[in-house]
């Protein structure tokens, strides 16, 4: 097979001195699916950004079909037949599928006017040609995420992409949607397209890829045929040491319920009922996992539990106190801590220092302040302690928190929330976007909290995480609990999928007030 894209001795150094790619060489063969795996910050996305012209290399060569290629902007890469499906989908939400597909190369009528009918027709043709069904005249905002992603792929194909780069495409998909995506990719491969698949989900890499390149710390560790690698083998090469992907042991002792939610109903701003008659309990010493496609009420539910959104009706009991009317601060004082899904939005003040972010929930303690001054020495000592205990890689506690990597920012949030010694831990997407090393470490911290008798309420779109950590699992769909699994140790991702998509529901689920 011919080499379509060849990267030779590529170096990329960011202006702040970070070496993102160090002497990277990769050959990508035409008509294959080539996975690039590595932890966050390993340099895989940067490498693809260089190929796509979003950023430029310091030195090294890229050749496309044997010709030297150095795009200075994405449009050059697009013209050369490269398409990229970004992690954050690049679609205008209120425009239709057809408009999004033709954007930038619009068909015209009379030389001046945008020909909407022809755009729809073209979109329909391209959708049929590649057998990727999309509703061409619907606005993007009405489509599920899996379909939106298909629009992105069509966008690239409409621009005659021969080489498709997909950056973490499955991060937001259910197992079933992921499988559909993979069938699409297989099909595109048969039609002669080349696919570069960036991921850190090893099972998926194993399922889809022909060749795997493993990156660690800006370098290529190895490139091998997928058939010669095991999941454990890839993980080990990625992290540099053995990784435990197995489920955690079930807790030895489960105490009384610490968090009880009864018949909770919530309405979103747009009038849609976000949470419908939801009831559950979380006991001390267990982790209750919530599986579900994002946007099915989990976000609203979590925000209600920590006092950030009001509820329509129902009870939220922490111990025996109803917190529905309490402020977030009062709720914290009752022993509830919150690891929010959007750490930059709700978890930290990005422009403030690490130590300021750490004491934001506890600065009023006598140890840290009186009414007119803050004891910075104590704050510093406290922060240094947490940085050590939680293994946060940080230069100084006085540095701006956003100068850290995503995984380390998340460790700061988790350090603050767990060191507050809560009774109830509400964790939403606690490992989103962090690398597998931090992933494992954050899991250890959550399990330790559980073992100390805390009640952990875990919401995650990462099914591996739900299955690894949960003692019990509930599944949410369109604001309702559609399934309950009292013993998570026997559940598989395939069991959860149909409930997450709303294809199946347990009959008794919504009526039953959990014991």
């Amino acid at each position, binding site marked *: 097979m011919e080499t379509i894209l060849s990267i030779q001795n590529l170096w990329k150094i*960011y202006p*702040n001195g*970070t070496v*993102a790619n160090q002497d990277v060489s990769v050959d990508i063969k035409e008509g294959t699916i080539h996975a690039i795996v590595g932890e966050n*910050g390993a340099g895989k996305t940067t490498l693809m950004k260089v190929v796509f012209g979003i950023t430029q290399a310091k030195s090294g060569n890229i050749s496309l079909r044997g010709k030297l290629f150095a795009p200075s*902007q*994405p*449009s050059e890469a*697009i013209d050369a037949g490269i398409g*990229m499906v*970004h992690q*954050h*989908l*690049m*679609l*205008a*939400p*209120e*425009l239709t599928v057809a*408009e*999004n597909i033709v*954007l*930038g*190369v*619009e068909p*015209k009528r009379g030389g*001046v*006017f*945008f020909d*909407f009918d022809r755009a729809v027709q073209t979109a329909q043709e391209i959708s049929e040609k590649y057998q990727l069904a999309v509703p061409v005249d619907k606005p993007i905002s009405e489509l599920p995420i899996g379909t939106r992603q298909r629009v992105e792929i069509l*966008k690239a194909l409409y*621009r005659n992409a021969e080489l498709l780069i997909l950056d973490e495409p499955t991060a937001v998909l259910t197992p079933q949607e992921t499988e559909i995506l993979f069938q699409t990719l297989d099909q595109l491969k048969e039609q002669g397209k080349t696919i570069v698949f960036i991921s850190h989900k090893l099972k998926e890499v194993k399922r889809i890829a022909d060749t795997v390149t493993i990156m660690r710390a800006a370098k290529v560790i190895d490139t091998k045929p997928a058939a010669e690698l095991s999941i454990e083998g890839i993980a080990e090469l990625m992290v540099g040491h053995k990784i435990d992907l197995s489920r955690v042991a079930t807790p030895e002792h489960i105490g009384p319920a610490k968090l009880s939610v009864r018949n909770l109903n919530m*309405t*979103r*701003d747009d*009038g849609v009922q976000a949470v419908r008659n939801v009831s559950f309990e979380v006991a001390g010493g267990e982790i209750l996992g919530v599986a579900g496609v994002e946007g099915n009420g989990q*976000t*609203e539910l979590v*925000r209600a539990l920590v006092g*950030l*959104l*009001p509820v329509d009706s129902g009870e939220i009991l922490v111990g025996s106190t109803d917190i529905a009317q309490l402020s977030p601060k009062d709720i914290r004082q009752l022993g509830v801590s919150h690891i929010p899904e*959007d750490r*930059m*939005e709700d978890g930290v003040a*990005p422009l403030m220092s690490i130590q300021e972010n750490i004491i934001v929930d506890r600065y009023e303690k006598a140890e840290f302040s009186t009414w007119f001054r803050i004891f910075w020495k104590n704050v510093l000592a406290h922060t240094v302690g947490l940085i050590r205990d939680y293994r946060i*890689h940080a230069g100084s506690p006085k540095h701006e928190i*956003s*100068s*850290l*990597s*995503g995984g*380390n*920012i998340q460790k700061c949030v988790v350090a603050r929330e767990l060191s507050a010694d809560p009774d109830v831990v509400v964790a939403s997407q606690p490992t989103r*976007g962090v690398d597998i090393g931090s992933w494992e470490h954050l899991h250890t911290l959550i399990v330790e909290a559980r073992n100390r008798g805390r009640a952990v309420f875990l919401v995650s779109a990462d099914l591996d995480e739900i299955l690894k950590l949960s003692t019990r699992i509930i599944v949410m769909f369109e604001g309702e609990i559609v399934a309950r699994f009292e013993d998570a140790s026997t559940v598989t991702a395939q069991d959860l999928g149909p409930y997450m998509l709303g294809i199946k529901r347990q009959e008794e689920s919504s009526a039953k007030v959990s014991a």
Partner: protein
Amino acid sequence: MSTLLESIFSVEFFFAVLRVSTPLIFPALGVAITAMSGNINIGLEGIMLIAAFTGVIVSIYTESLMLALLAGVASGVFFGAALGYFHLKLKADIILAAVALNFLASGLTIFLLIVITGGRNTSALRSLTFPSFNIPVLQSIPVLGPILSGHNIMTYVAFLSVFVYYVVLFKTPLGLRIRAVGQNPDAARSVGINVDRVKLYALMISGVFGALGGLYLSMGYVSWFSRDMVAGRGFIAVAAATMGGNLSFGTLLGSMLFGLVNTATIYISSLDIPSDLVQSIPYLATVIVLAIYSARNFAPRKRRAVSTHHGENEHHEKKP
């Protein structure tokens, strides 16, 4: 009171509403098109003022209405482009840049006015005006005729502009790009669209609309230029466009609602009420309308909305 009601439900009143709405419709369209491209443009005040001034001066010196129109529009486009230069190229905050340009427009026009007139009474500068226009068949229809016919030609241009706005935004590739850039600049960028250029075009088009509004003020509504004669219309336009969701018909309705209130104010001032109080009615109405508008949008939940997926990639996490 009954005489007031009688005069309000008169043909003259509704004729006046259209007249008073004209210098709101133009800038509101300017605000709307920039909003569609993802920018807030509070610079219409300055754009209108500059164009109003340029039009008057050029019409006096050239005695050509056409040259006055062209020069006025050019000045508006230049101002829109200048705002674009400060915001897009020099990366200044667009609100601050617009505030600065508004002050510049105010100061510059006063300065030039004094230079040109030598400090004489401004009414010495008699501008040419755009002609009024009777619509042949329409004018003979009772009630409707006297309301719709006989307006300044710029009033008809204003209504035509609403249609033009619709066509540009929804029926041209540029309009599609403007909307795409406004909704998700990254999406536009990813397909090779020059986002800054599209935003600049939107600002320049808003300069055209704003200029037409300013020209009407000094060369139709009245026939002279006086200092700060725009009197907040560029800001009321922001309210009008926002209320109309920046869509063509909505923006028209929003502008006419404010036009209606302003006209009513003129009628009420004939009553025995302190005039300062009456003068405040349009501004009070703006506050009330915006309060009702935002209450309707945000009332059900006081706490902030759950964030959606787009618009969230503003805060990137930096690499170590």
